[in-house]
């Protein structure tokens, strides 16, 4: 009996020693100075808020990070902050401000030869060019990225932007749009793209089709995905595109409803450019005097601050 106990005890000891030996402990990360850590934390907080569509808050964090990085002459940090600020301003339709921050980032990236940020820079630069309807320039910007046979997120983003360009030019060449849409679909499959990419693909497909039912099917599919993900820009963009399709089908009342819903989302996103675009669309199709009057009022008034617009918009439509 005693022999059995002794054997069991020895077994436990051997097991404990072997477990201790197999437990791997890696060393801690190299500790960064507190100033850099604080600035990086601000950047991270900004990114989190950006992903939650809290653009104003994200801008505040990015500005703080930029100030902190500038105070220690941290060029990589300054470039990152400027890129983030550029993208956030682009998201809310402040194209001029976005362009200004992008130029600052580009200057630092080129001067300091920061290769890690060059792909990010190209994507944002191409997006700004698309927003400014500079499609040829946008294509040139994207070329280096498209030539790479990578399956990373940058390549997928580059293909997405290239497909947008093709669709913007689809009135001249629809086959090119179809080809890029197909490329985009293949890339989503090969690089396991997200649900948001699937929704974007559905919108591209809807735009390619001339059949109302197919358009409605794809747009409905995209809207459902975006709603499930609570992706505000996606929902608003789908509603806007759907309203265009409905206007072509002469369903102006339904189109008006979609535009108004999209307008509420753009307003909550503080997206000035798209808000005004929707108001223009509403003014074109609105048959009732009230909506037209309001649309004209909101468009004609030069709001100094976004808050003024929101205050006026809160009463729309009566």
């Amino acid at each position, binding site marked *: 009996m005693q022999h059995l106990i002794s054997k069991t005890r020895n077994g436990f000891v051997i097991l404990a020693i072997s477990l201790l030996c*197999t*437990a*791997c*402990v*890696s*060393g*801690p*990360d190299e500790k960064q100075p507190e100033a850099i850590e604080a600035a*990086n*934390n601000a*950047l*991270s*907080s900004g*990114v*989190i808020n*950006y*992903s939650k569509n809290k653009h104003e808050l994200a801008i505040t964090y990015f500005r703080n990070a930029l100030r902190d990085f500038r105070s220690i002459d941290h060029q990589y940090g300054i470039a*990152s902050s400027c*890129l*983030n600020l550029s*993208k*956030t301003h*682009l*998201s*809310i*339709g402040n194209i001029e401000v976005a362009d200004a921050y992008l130029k600052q980032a580009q200057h630092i990236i080129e001067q300091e030869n920061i290769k890690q*940020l060059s*792909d*990010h820079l190209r*994507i*944002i630069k*191409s*997006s700004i060019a698309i*927003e400014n309807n500079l499609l040829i320039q946008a294509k040139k910007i994207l070329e280096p990225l498209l030539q790479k046979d990578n399956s990373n*997120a*940058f390549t*997928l*983003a580059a293909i*997405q*932007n290239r497909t*947008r360009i093709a669709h913007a030019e689809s009135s001249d060449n629809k086959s090119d749009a179809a080809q890029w849409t197909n490329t985009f679909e293949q890339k989503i499959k090969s690089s396991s793209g997200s649900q*948001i990419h699937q929704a*974007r693909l559905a919108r591209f497909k809807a735009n390619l089709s001339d059949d109302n039912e197919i358009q409605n099917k794809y747009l409905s599919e995209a809207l459902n995905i975006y709603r499930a993900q609570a992706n505000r*820009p996606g929902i608003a*963009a789908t509603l806007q595109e759907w309203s265009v399709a409905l206007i072509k089908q002469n369903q102006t009342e339904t189109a008006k409803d979609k535009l108004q819903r999209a307008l509420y989302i753009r307003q909550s996103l503080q*997206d000035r450019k*798209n808000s005004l675009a929707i108001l223009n669309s509403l003014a074109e199709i609105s048959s009732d005097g009230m909506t037209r009057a309001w649309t004209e009022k909101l468009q004609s008034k030069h709001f100094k601050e976004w808050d003024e617009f929101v205050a006026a918009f809160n009463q729309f439509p009566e």
Partner: protein
Amino acid sequence: MPERRSLPRTHYIHRISYSTQERIVGIFVLLALFILLGLLLSSGKTKNLFEDYVTIYGELQSVQAVNKDAEVVISGLPAGTVTSVDITDDNKVILTMKILKKYHNLLREDSEAKLSSFNFAVVQKSMIEITTGSNDKALLKDGSTIAINEAFNIKEMIAKIEPIFVSLEDSIKKMNNVLSAIDHDKLEVTLDNMNVLTTDIRNITQHMAEAKGLMGSMIYEKEMETNVKSIAVNMVDVTNNLRTTTLLINKQIEDMPELVNKIGPLLKEADKTIKASQRIWPLSTAIGENNESSDTLTSPSPAND
């Protein structure tokens, strides 16, 4: 058995010797004498019994209420008494003052004497006040004479009051002029207005008494009074509660900086521990790294698409 008779117990005085009795009597007599002597020495009249005196003479124009035994005071200190009051052939009054020798050095050539008399009243008491002289002046010699300023008398008083009566007469004359200048008709109108005003005030007061109107209700209505009282009581409670709450909050706020200071390092330590745990296998498989917070760049997906 014959009955035992108890003998009466004799006083101790009968059991002590005669000489002892004499000694006890002597002790009592001496004790009484000592007490008497003590009382004599401590009394006011005899406390300066063995003190030396100097004699100073004071000269007065009239006797007034000065009498023998009148007190002599030097700078507020009782320094002696008037021992005699004499009238000279030329009708001057000479006071003989016995002043304690210990105060003699206060009496100098420039010392002034004054008769303070309360002879108007029933008290009939006079006092000679002498001021202390300058140190640089010579001492008043024993037996020297000092002029005494006389007390306030009726003549002087009338002389002082007379101008007051004159100015009072003037004021009355002026008042008379003012009153004569008032227009009686205007005064009548003013009085009429005053009368109306008084009536109005009476009406308002009456309304208030009948609990009419806001003020009346506030002052006379019982229900309102009860409500106001109840509100006041509640207000006191509320104020007390608020005070307590404020005190508590203040205390909490005072502790806040300390708390924050303590929490900061604690969170850092917790963060370090979590990060360290993430590096230890097999714990790292259970605690995943938080990649969300480490991203410093937004996702590459095109913005606003």
